């Protein structure tokens, strides 16, 4: 209810149609599925004690499996992560408007109440959620929530809650959600091979910290492997790794920042040569273990904001990751879609200052590097890749001190040729994927050798 200025009361009870539209319109299909994965992971995390997810801890998730299958006819997700209790179902997952932020505890990332309902309304119109769990007395319990959306939408009168039925037990304690009668858009996307493959890529990236702890996620029966995030250490290179505590209101937020060289910077800064070569570089942000921003090169992570230059190909090779950990997910600087960070959050802005300083060290290194290329390449070959979990604590990033070498003035060449000819020449030169720049250089060397021939 809202009260107007004259004191009259206005009936502001929403309709189901309005509610469904509101919670589904700004979320993508991918995020809907990731929401469900978040719920499963939260259950697993709860089982393991619900502690802060810092990189250094040793929580092993290898006992947990999440299986997803998506086809134009049917979507399903099934986990063995312990299941949702009847209380959770009644109080949160399938009720409307009874959950307060104080309940977002235990270092979770999902928001049960929204995730389940979103999935119901976004994916299809015939949903069955099943849960099997072991209660505090050690007895196994099972229930099912069938949701027929069209039926449910017919009546706006409260209560809006869904019915909960008895059910036979699943093999393992866990949750199974099956959605049939998929919506047209969902059906089309699930028939798109690129969608499924991109979903796998998204899972590999966003849950890489969980997957690297042993969690198993399979899509269409095939396991997804976590994207390894590694930094190079040794030979004068050492990533920064700092930890500090921050406050979000009364609550504490743990922040950990790691950054350094993941790969040597590119030979060329020609965008034609970029392909997806620099796709993995930039800043990553994780909130309670879930990566919500990956390889960011935009103003969100600070590039191109005050006292911080815009991303440039020259800076490729750098990876930084910031981990925010909070008992209450509401204190984390993430947007509601969990697809980006809330750049106005104080916790995040304070972290960004440190991210800027680390980035600037790298920028300075790549600037000097251009004039000491031979020395830089020699030194960059030394360090070894180390998974970020194993990066040593260090207050600042270490990079070799290079000495600028005065070089002969160079001529830059720029010309256009048909791509087909370029590809044919690259193939003849031994690598169909050779960068245009290298094809140009090799052609120059070849001609130079023929016509000038002085080496």
């Amino acid at each position, binding site marked *: 209810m809202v009260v107007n200025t004259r004191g009259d009361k206005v009936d502001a009870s929403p309709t189901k149609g309005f509610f469904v539209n509101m919670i589904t319109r700004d979320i993508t299909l991918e995020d809907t599925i990731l929401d469900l994965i978040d719920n499963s992971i939260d259950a697993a995390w709860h089982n393991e004690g619900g502690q802060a997810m810092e990189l250094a801890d040793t929580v092993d998730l290898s006992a947990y499996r999440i299986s997803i299958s998506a086809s134009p006819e049917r979507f399903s997700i099934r986990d063995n992560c312990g299941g949702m209790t009847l209380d959770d179902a009644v109080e949160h997952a399938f009720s409307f408007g009874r959950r307060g932020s104080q309940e977002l505890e235990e270092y979770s990332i999902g928001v049960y109440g929204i995730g389940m309902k979103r999935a119901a309304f976004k994916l299809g119109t015939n949903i069955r959620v099943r849960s099997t769990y072991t209660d505090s007395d050690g007895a196994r319990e099972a229930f099912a929530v069938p949701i027929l959306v069209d039926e449910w939408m017919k009546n706006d009168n409260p209560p809006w809650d869904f019915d909960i039925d008895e059910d036979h037990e699943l093999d393992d304690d866990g949750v199974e959600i099956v959605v049939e009668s998929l919506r047209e858009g969902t059906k*089309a*996307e699930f*028939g*798109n*091979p*690129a*969608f499924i*493959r*991109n979903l*796998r*890529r998204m899972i*590999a990236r966003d849950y890489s910290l969980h997957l690297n702890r042993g969690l198993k996620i399979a899509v269409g029966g*095939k396991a997804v492997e976590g994207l390894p995030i590694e930094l190079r250490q040794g030979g004068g290179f050492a990533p920064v790794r700092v930890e500090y505590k921050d406050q979000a209101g009364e609550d504490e937020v743990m922040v950990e920042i790691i950054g350094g060289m993941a790969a040597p910077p590119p030979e060329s800064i020609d965008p034609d040569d970029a*392909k*997806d070569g620099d796709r993995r570089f930039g800043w990553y942000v994780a909130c309670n273990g879930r990566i919500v921003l990956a390889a960011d090169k935009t103003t969100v992570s600070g590039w191109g904001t005050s006292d911080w230059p815009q991303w440039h190909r020259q800076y490729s090779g750098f990876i930084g990751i910031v981990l925010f950990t909070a008992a209450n997910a509401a204190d984390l600087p993430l947007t509601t879609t969990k697809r980006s960070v809330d750049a106005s959050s104080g916790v995040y802005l304070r972290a960004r200052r440190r991210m800027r300083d680390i980035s600037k060290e790298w920028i300075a290194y790549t600037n000097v590097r251009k004039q000491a290329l031979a020395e830089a390449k020699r030194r960059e070959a030394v360090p070894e890749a180390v998974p970020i979990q194993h990066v040593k604590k260090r207050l600042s990033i270490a990079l070799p001190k290079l000495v600028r070498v005065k070089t002969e003035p160079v001529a830059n060449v720029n010309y256009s040729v048909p*791509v*087909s000819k370029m*590809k044919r020449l690259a*193939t003849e030169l*031994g*690598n*169909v*994927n050779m960068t245009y720049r290298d094809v140009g250089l090799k052609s120059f060397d070849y001609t130079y050798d023929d016509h000038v021939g002085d080496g």
Partner: protein
Amino acid sequence: MASFDIVNYSLRPSKGIQRQIIFDGIRMLKSRLELSDMIYVGLGSIWFSDFVQAHKSLDIRRMVSIEADDTGYCRARFNKPYATVQVRHGHSSAVLAELHDDDDCQAHPWVVWLDYDGRLSEAMVGDIRAVIERSPSDTILLTTFKARATSYGRPEQRKERLRDLLGDVVPDDLSKAGCKGDRMQETLADLVTDFMKAIGVESARPGGFIPAFRIIYKDTMEMVTVGGIVPAPGNVSSATDVISDERWRCRPQRRIVAPLLTIREAVTLLSLLPRDDELTREQVRVSGFDLEQEQIEAFERYYREYPMFAQIVA
């Protein structure tokens, strides 16, 4: 040099069989979906074999052949088999764009066969994308390209090359083995099909893209033909029915490698077919000559489509 200067198109039996199967398939779709006044768009070269089939078996009158080569254009105009074949001079991307902009062409379903003789390239992928995105409803698209593994770089380079060409549909775990030897043709057929489906979804074609054709064949070179239909929403289920029917032959499990036979050999084999049991090598020997077992099997499978050519001394 254009490929018609190297290969006499008429004399490739596997290609001929493939073409026959495909036109039979298109005829089934045309009849079930009640398609009429279709337009055939192809790369007729100077031989126009597919155009002749399009006219004879599909009763298509209006046909457009695209020819980029200057001499080829002149020869194509000379060789075009029917008055209603229009030869357009230009690269396929430009001519397709003109056809897509033409309101009259947009008013009829097309059969488009982009029958290339080279390996898959950025330009071809662009053509496939354009046809799926912009062609009229109920258009049937086919594309043929060279699929020998070595045409796509060294084994370790091939996945990246495919990623360059086809983008996100190329799985991250595509193995080197999947890009070698005969597996490469399967991989290419599957990924180009996936690419077509993805474009159908991403361009929000109301009926999507339904894969219908997948043929690997070899005369002197491994080739792949894939394609499907972008049906009007009302035709989706009919198209799916036709393609999932057991009589649909346009997605054979095995590649088509037809033996090169003399007329006398072919006629002798035909006289032994059809039969309830399998034709054996011994039976062929008894009839006076010999073939490898797999050649016999290939002939038996496709004897009805096997082309017969005789030299005409003019």
